[in-house]
């Protein structure tokens, strides 16, 4: 398949989680073309990767905000969370 393979494996790792629940044949009325399918995998992997990075970035930001106590909102959220888990 050529030079994109490493990229592809990286994408595939990210996709594993998302793909666990998926099952269906790729039946099609027209030939989608191998180039198009591989490209879609790459684009989707990147989209999913960016989504995850965003998610972790937001978590990281919340974490830092909590540490420094800058955000009243997050403090409140944190207190609520603690409140929901009594006797720990």
């Amino acid at each position, binding site marked *: *398949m*050529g*030079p*994109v393979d490493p990229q592809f494996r990286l994408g595939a790792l990210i*996709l594993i989680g*998302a*793909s666990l*629940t*998926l*099952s*269906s*044949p*790729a039946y*099609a*009325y*027209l*030939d*989608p*073309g*191998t*180039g*198009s*399918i*591989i*490209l*879609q*995998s*790459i*684009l*989707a*992997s990147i*989209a*999913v990767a960016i*989504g995850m990075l965003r998610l972790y970035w937001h978590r990281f930001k919340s974490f830092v905000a909590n540490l420094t106590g800058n955000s009243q909102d997050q403090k409140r959220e944190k207190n609520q969370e603690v409140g929901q888990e009594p006797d720990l």
Partner: protein
Amino acid sequence: MPVAANDFDAVRSSGFINELVAGGNLVAETIVDKSILGRDGEQAAYVLEHPKLPFVSYPYEWSFEGLKKAALLHLEIQQAALHADVALTDATAYNIQFVGPKPIFIDSLSFRPYADGEYWAGHRQFCEQFINPLLLRAAAGLAHNAWFRGSLEGISAEETSRVLPWHSRLSWNTFTNVFLQARLQRSSAGAQESIAKIKARRLPRIGFEQILHGLHRWIGKLKPKTDSKTVWADYAQDNSYAHEETEKKRAFVADFVGRVQPGLILDIGCNTGDYSALALATGANLAIGFDFDHSALDAAFRRAEQDSLNFLPLHLDAANPSPNQGWLQAERLGFQARAKGDAVLALALVHHLAIAKNLPLGQIVDWLVSMAPQGVIEFVPKSDPMVQRLLQLREDLFDDYDGGIFENLIGNAARIVRSETVSSSARTLYWYDRS
């Protein structure tokens, strides 16, 4: 029950089809009694009836702006479909038609239930019939029309990658959809092992959504690359008419349209759509304009959208109109078979055909008159500066290009209801009626 009928039921039970129809994005449908088809109907699970569209056009006749609008509609339908757990079987541009400048999807049978994890089967087709033709113009300044007409299934990534300028790789979307796709197609072609791997792969829904979203945002921003003015785009502002003479011409056309009240008026040589707009304001219901200048067509399309005109400007080289073509040469009808209006306008057109294209004056008149029972045709005499410009660099071989001869030709083909000289250079308008 056949698969298609099951898909039909499943998609309709979701309410998705009704929503698309209500939004004017999909042609309406009614399930009618099968007996309407006689014996053919016995085999069918359903027989559908659709309202007839006023005019059929093809992607190789659309302007850049028109093709772009059609591409965006396709993506919007894909997005809405995915949201409703529905997929499209293909992405052909021929599944879109126009009502005025508004695109409408016409293949209500190309919807089926979405299966989790399936690929976008029509992605390559979408690239070939929408993205690549648009990029030719946006990135390389080439209009898609001639190429698309010669290659009805669109323009491949491979071909596009060979003509786009090198720096267009710097655009992420162009790089991935054109250059990378072409390369992946090349490198994976014929490799049976990779085919098996590919078939086993899944596209997560969120990835599919992101691809559609990204394409929509990108295509929405594409613009034609036009560094210099094209010949006719500024014609409406920049021609040799004095204002008063233009008013005379407009009054003649307004009077004609007001009295004829055509449902469909064909405006041959529509430029940016001045006279189509006038016709719609004075009694015509729908105007289909034709011109060969791409920038003029784009301007006309934008005007139709901005002013909500029931006007569709299309590309036409009058000396070489769209032929009957495709499978059995019957798949896509030629211009001649479709261009039947209630009225026709041919303003400032005849001299381009007779002088610039060396076509016989009598044939031009017959051709125009054949399009509609009534119409207005303008004759621009040799003394006019516009004709002088056409003759600047060539020998004047046109002895029979003459007002008197022209009038006789029109008189032979139809009855002249009225004629009027509208400029100091003796431009003359003829209202003909052959009904």
